[in-house]
């Protein structure tokens, strides 16, 4: 009898584990096909002079070419500048907006969340078209009308090296904070009220509560937004492609745009793949240091 029960239990276990494997298989297959395979394939292509009807193996030539290409370094520098100018400011702005929204009632909060999230829902291409209109180089442009109020003459926003990068940065500053605001709000709402009550009893000011309660509790969220923000920013492509084409004189050529040009303008998929892997390595390195430096005293 005991033997029979043990056998039944064993069979049930085997059956459960079978289903378990089946469900894991779905995720594993999806990961293999859509993540692992492209990465492995990109690595294989990076070692080839890729041609659709027959590629040739060239070893590390594509990596060497990328390292010796001035434009690659310039694009990397542009991307780094863009990241440094956009990510910290965007996080700060999202944090401030979240703090401002926080005291409102739930209904009002929802309205603000929806409004701020709207640009994230809109197509990036549509947003770019709107911004092209804002940066119209003639007097008809909204940005030029705005600076004209301060007696500043027409600016060639996207056509001049002096302003092209700033224009893209400004576009990033003034749009797409919705996701970060919502994440910050969720994190803010998860802080137990008793901390604030204790702080109130001790007579803490608003800034003290911010310094000693809010900021430490939001550190994991900030680190998350910083890491994902840097990753997203290093992969920026669309705005440079649609608004400046990388110009003038490569002032706004980002690595993403360079990779796109190599792949789809010159059909140099090998070099594009090599540069993609180099970009991935740079992002991984930066993320590693972010976790190493900022993630030390984080309690999840």
């Amino acid at each position: 009898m005991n033997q029979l029960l043990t056998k039944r239990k064993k069979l049930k276990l085997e059956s459960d584990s079978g289903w378990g494997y089946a469900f894991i298989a779905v995720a594993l297959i999806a990961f293999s096909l859509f993540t692992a395979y492209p990465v492995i394939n990109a690595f294989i292509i990076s070692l080839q002079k890729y041609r659709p009807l027959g590629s040739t193996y060239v070893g590390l030539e594509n990596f060497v070419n990328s390292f010796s290409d001035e434009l690659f370094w310039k694009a990397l520098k542009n991307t780094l500048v863009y990241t440094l100018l956009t990510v910290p400011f965007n996080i700060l702005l999202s944090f401030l907006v979240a703090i401002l929204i926080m005291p409102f009632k739930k209904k009002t909060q929802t309205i603000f969340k929806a409004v701020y999230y709207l640009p994230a829902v809109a197509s990036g291409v549509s947003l770019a078209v709107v911004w092209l209109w804002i940066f119209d180089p003639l007097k008809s442009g909204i940005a030029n009308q705005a600076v004209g109020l301060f007696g500043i003459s027409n600016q060639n926003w996207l056509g001049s090296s002096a302003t092209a990068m700033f224009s893209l940065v400004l576009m990033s500053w003034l749009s797409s904070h919705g996701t970060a605001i919502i994440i910050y709000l969720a994190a803010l709402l998860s802080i137990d009220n008793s901390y604030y009550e204790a702080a109130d009893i001790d007579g803490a000011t608003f800034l003290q509560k911010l310094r000693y309660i809010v900021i430490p509790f939001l550190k994991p969220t900030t680190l998350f937004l910083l890491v994902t923000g840097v990753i997203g920013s290093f992969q920026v492509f669309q705005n440079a492609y649609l608004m400046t084409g990388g110009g003038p004189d490569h002032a706004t050529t980002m690595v993403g745009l360079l990779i796109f040009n190599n792949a789809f303008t010159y059909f140099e998929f090998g070099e594009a793949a090599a540069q993609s892997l180099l970009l991935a390595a740079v992002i991984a390195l930066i993320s590693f240091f972010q976790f190493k430096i900022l993630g030390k005293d984080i309690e999840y």
Partner: protein
Amino acid sequence: MKKRNGSTLLLSAIMMMSLLSACGGNANNTADSANSGSTGSSGAGKDTITALLPPVSANYQARFADMEKEFNALHPNLTLKIEPASWEDMTQKLDTQVNAGSPPDIAWIGASGLSKYAALDVLIDLNPVLSDEVKADYDEVPMKYFQLGDAQYGLPAYMEIHTIGGNKQFLEEAGIDWKSIQQNGWTYDEFRKAIAKGVVKNDKGETSRYGFVFATSGVTSKDYLAILAKTAGLPDYFDKDLKYTYTSKKFLGLLTAIREMIDDGSMPKELSSIDAGKRWNMFLTGQTMITGKGLSAFENSARLNNEKIKANDGSAVADSIEVDYISLPVPTFNGADYIPTSIVDGYIALRGKKEPSEEHIKNIALAVNFLSSGSIAANYSNELFLTPITESARKAEVLEKFPRNEDNVAAGKAMMAKALPARTDIPTEQAAEALKIETEVIIPKLQALLADEITPQEMYDAVKAAAVKSFGEDGVVAD
């Protein structure tokens, strides 16, 4: 229990199969349909020819179903399957399919892109399967645009001359004899004086109308330079000895002229940010006397807008004025001869990973010729205000008639007569290298020149350095 384990395995297998088929299905199907070389011998009994085509003219895509039916009626053993694409995603769609090794049999491209696909070795030479009768139907100059070496990689659909377009009223107010210019052309000095006369300033001293506005934002700057270079003694990147020509002093002269037109105030100082839509809007709203680049079809666009203004139709361009569009030739620089920039677009024949059979290539040739000649070509040429480039299209009846400015028609013929055939002798590797210099050096430096950030000499030096690096001291023109 075994049954349960079996069902688990079965489910997993189905999931795996469905994922795999979802990923690979499309490409495989396309490859099969694109390269199923057997005419009438397959199970389906018919050979299918696929084509990826953009909206060439306003009504072109609307006629696809009729075109497919007509082709099938002419060739009952063949099926023509046309996939429409927008202008925006045409190249990307095609390039994705080409790189996956499963392109359509036929695709629409500008002839300037021929070397790109030739370098990838995906083009099919139609020469052996095109009859002499078919070849004789096409005009020689446009036909050459789809040749590389001795290979005929496709057939031309139309040929267009890139002109510049003037506002008749403004030209006459500035005392410009546009009829004479249409027939005899003009030099850069004459043009420079003329566009200076076209500038109008308001009471505050601000320019309310420019003499000349050309779209130069982003990649359109390439058009601007290439069109002007043709008439500056630089008809191609390579001379007859295959030496790179943009290192010639003629190029420096052209760059100096480009800067002068902005410094004179005849063109906006913000020119580097003006895109194609903006400069056409500026033309229709009277903010410029001459616009570039001009296409024949713009005459019709201006006419349609005039009609909307007259009818008080709200869909007319905001603040636009009635405009009589006048086609003008591009001025000549450096004392060079007038060589118009001919744009030839058409259909190429493509192959994928699976080698197409001889029969299938024959069928592709039939379909390409069907699309680029006769009534189909007659209709889109007519809609675009172009003269057809095949005898069969010139003879064919068109579905609609459009009123045209006879002076523009005559000017178009005069310019077309000076069009040169495409170069078929430039090796694809050399053409690819020139394309890279164009994209990585010429366009970015031109943007900087237009934005007044570098001098013509600095741009010239940068292009020369890049050319010498690519082709060597002996591979470039030194004068």
